[in-house]
C-alpha cells in the first residue's frame, strides 16, 4: 500500500480542522462557571476550597515543592520546584476548562462547578 502526497495532505488538513473546531468548542464551554477548587496530589484529593468565600488571599503548600495561591474567585500556582515551571506560567484560573497541571510533581488543581456529592436539584 502506498499513500500519495495528496492523501497525506488531506488527512493532515482534516486533523487540523478537527483540532481547531474542538478548541473553539472548548473555549465556548468556558462560560460554564464553577467556584470549588480541588487540589489533587498523586491522584488523591487533598483539599477542596470554595473560592467565592475566600476574602483574604493566602498560600498553601502542596506536596514537597508546590505552593498554591488562593484568592477570591481564582487560584494559581505561585511556586514550584520543577524545571519547566509550566504550572506557574499558566497563571490564575477561575473556570473549569483548563486545570493547572504540574506533571513532574503530580499536582493538579481543577475547578468544579459544585460539590460533586450533592445533587443538582431534587424534584418532589
Amino acid at each position, binding site marked *: *500500500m502506498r499513500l500519495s502526497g495528496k492523501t*497525506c495532505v488531506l488527512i*493532515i488538513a482534516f486533523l487540523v480542522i478537527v483540532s481547531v473546531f*474542538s478548541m473553539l468548542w472548548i473555549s465556548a464551554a468556558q462560560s460554564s462557571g464553577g467556584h470549588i477548587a480541588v487540589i489533587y496530589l498523586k491522584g488523591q484529593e487533598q483539599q477542596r476550597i470554595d473560592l467565592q468565600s475566600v476574602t483574604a488571599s493566602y498560600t498553601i503548600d502542596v506536596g514537597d515543592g508546590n505552593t498554591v495561591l488562593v484568592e477570591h474567585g481564582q487560584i494559581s500556582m505561585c511556586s514550584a520546584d520543577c*524545571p519547566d515551571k*509550566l504550572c506557574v506560567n499558566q497563571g490564575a484560573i477561575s473556570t473549569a476548562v483548563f486545570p493547572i497541571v504540574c506533571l513532574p510533581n*503530580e499536582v493538579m488543581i481543577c475547578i468544579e462547578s459544585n460539590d460533586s456529592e450533592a445533587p443538582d436539584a431534587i424534584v418532589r
Partner: protein
Amino acid sequence: MNAKRLTSIALLSAAALIVFVIEAQIPTLVPIPGVKLGLANVITLVSMYILSRCDTFYILLIRIILGSILSGQIMSFFYSLAGGLLCFLVMSLLFCILTKKQVWVISIAGAIAHNAGQLTVAAFVLNSTQIFVYAPYLLLSGIITGTFTGLCAQLLVHRFSRE
C-alpha cells in the same frame, strides 16, 4: 554486533542526546504541558533511513534513559518512554508504506503519537480524565512541530542518500 554498527549507534545516540539537552534549554512558548519541538525525533527519523529500525530502537531507548538522567526527573522518564515507544511504533509502521519524499508525514504521525502517549500516561498518573481537554492543542502542536522536524529530517536523509 560489529564495530561499525556499534559506533553508528553510539554516534547517533550522542547526537540525539545533545539535541535533547539543547532543546531542554529553550523556554516553552505556550503554557500547555507537553508542547515541545521534539528535535531529537530528527535523529530517530534519520537513523531509521541510514541504519535499521532495530538500531533506531536502541538509539531511542538510550536517548530516553540517559536523557531523563541528565534532566534529573524520574517522572519525565515515564512520559518520554510512553511517548517515545508509541511514536516509534507508528513511525516504523508508516516507514514501510511511505517514500523518502514523505518523511515529514511520518514525522507528523510520530509527533501526534508521542503527544497521545504522553497524555495517556499523564491521565493515568494524575488519575484524571480532565487533562484530555488539552488533546486538541497537543494535536495541533504535534502537526506543527512534526512538520518542522520532519522537513529537517527529510533534508538530512536526502543529503545522506546522495553520498
